[in-house]
């Protein structure tokens, strides 16, 4: 489903964020991407959505080599990949409902489908009662849940979550992870970048560790501390 072949990423300012990363994620897999801050987790995820372009190597998503993508194809790639951004990236001038609906509307969905799917997503993340609020009227955790609802409304093939529990208490974090597991069980490939030791250790899924932009460990049914001795 996702293949990285010797991918390196150097930002225009000269920072080397990824070095020769090779990684294969199968369809329907669930993977944790761990590593302390600044090791390249977000950068790796951004390669999958073509938010950044690797300096070297090739990324393949759903059988498609991203280096061959024309600009006009990028939106269609992104519709296959739901993303919960580390900084949420909600639209400030739209309500919760509109933020979630937007990701669906841009795909040309009929309003009937929008009216059916958006409430379902909001129910799922427990925000139905705040659907008319604006992002600045929400707590951090509620914003995060809005972002999760938006990432899922399209029924994406792949779900990328960058620190999806960063602002949540352990109880809510647990609930979110249960939700992600359920989505994964329905066939969606899920990658979660996180510092949250608790959820990684509880779930016992594949764990990939990034250190300085390199993959140092990759373990099935791993724990947060893989590779840290």
């Amino acid at each position, binding site marked *: 489903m996702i293949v990285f072949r010797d991918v390196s990423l150097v930002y225009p300012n000269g920072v080397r964020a990824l070095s020769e990363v090779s990684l294969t994620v199968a369809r329907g897999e669930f993977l944790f991407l761990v590593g302390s801050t600044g090791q390249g987790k977000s950068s790796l995820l951004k390669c999958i959505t073509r938010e950044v*372009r690797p300096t070297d190597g090739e990324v393949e998503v759903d059988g498609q080599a991203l280096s061959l993508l024309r600009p006009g194809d*990028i*939106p269609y790639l992104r*519709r296959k990949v739901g993303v919960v951004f580390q900084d949420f990236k909600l639209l400030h*001038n*739209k309500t919760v409902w509109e933020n979630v609906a937007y*990701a669906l509307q*841009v795909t040309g969905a009929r309003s009937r489908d929008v009216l059916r799917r958006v409430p379902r997503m909001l129910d799922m993340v427990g925000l139905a009662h705040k659907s008319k609020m604006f992002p600045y009227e929400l707590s951090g955790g509620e914003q995060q849940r809005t972002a999760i609802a*938006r990432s899922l409304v399209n029924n994406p093939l792949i779900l990328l979550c960058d620190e999806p529990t960063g602002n949540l208490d352990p109880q809510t974090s647990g609930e979110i992870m249960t939700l992600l597991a359920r989505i994964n069980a329905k066939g969606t490939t899920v990658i979660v970048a996180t510092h949250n030791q608790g959820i990684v250790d509880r779930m016992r899924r594949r764990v990939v560790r990034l250190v300085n932009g390199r993959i140092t460990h990759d373990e099935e049914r791993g724990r947060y501390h893989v590779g840290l001795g």
Partner: protein
Amino acid sequence: MWDWGRVRFFWAEVVQNFTRNVPMALTAIGTVAISIILLGVFLYLRTSFDSVMKTLVDQVALSIYLRDDARPGDVRALAARLAADPRVDSVRYVSKKQAIEHLRQTLRGQFNLNLLNTNPLPNTIVVHARHPADIPVLAQELGRSPAVAAVNYGQGITEKLLRAERWLSAAGLIVVGLLLVATALIMYNTIRLTVFARQREIHIMQLVGATGWTVRWPFVFEGILSGLCGALLGLTALALVYHSLAPAFVVNLPFLPFHPTSVSPLHLSLELLTIGVLVGMLSSLLSVSRYVEVA
């Protein structure tokens, strides 16, 4: 086929952006309105000034004085030539009798023309040219006919008048052109700022899978709407001022190049409206396109 769901979606986007960014929308509309007012006043003054100049220039006529002893054949040849010449607009024949009659009326007894025992005035052909600028050349050509005693079109003064008209008209065109560019730039810059303020939004739209045109369309509609509202506002202001002030100007300051009948308000309004809408639309489109990724 039109997908009304899509149209409704774009329209809702536009309305939302307007109603949730009122100060910004008003800034754009206000800028367009002021630009349109400026342009409107200038276009109006130029058009009416031009028409004053044109009236003046149109009065330039060529008088061909015929010899008293001209042969009828030569006169007929001259008349035929005038009738065939494409530069000639109208020809009027004034006989000696008519001329003296006209003079008599003009002088109204201040001078007793009966004291003259012959009529000293020649038979005259008065020629108006389609383009007054052609008159000097025409005069020269026609003067060579054996039937012609002399030609007169106010030599000297007429040339100066024609030159002045050409200059002023060109200068007016340049000023209007510059003003058009200046106001377009002002509108563009304001609209660009309103789009700039929404850079983040544009980026996010693309991250969730919006195509370039899905992002652009609402902005284009907004640009059109800003342009339209601004232009209408500006036109309303212009109309109010025009209707309350113009009659007073015409009466009290008749020497001003104010010529209400020469300018069609409808025509001018349509021009300004078109300018407002076009500039609004293009400004939005250009601005938003800078932030639509082409990576």
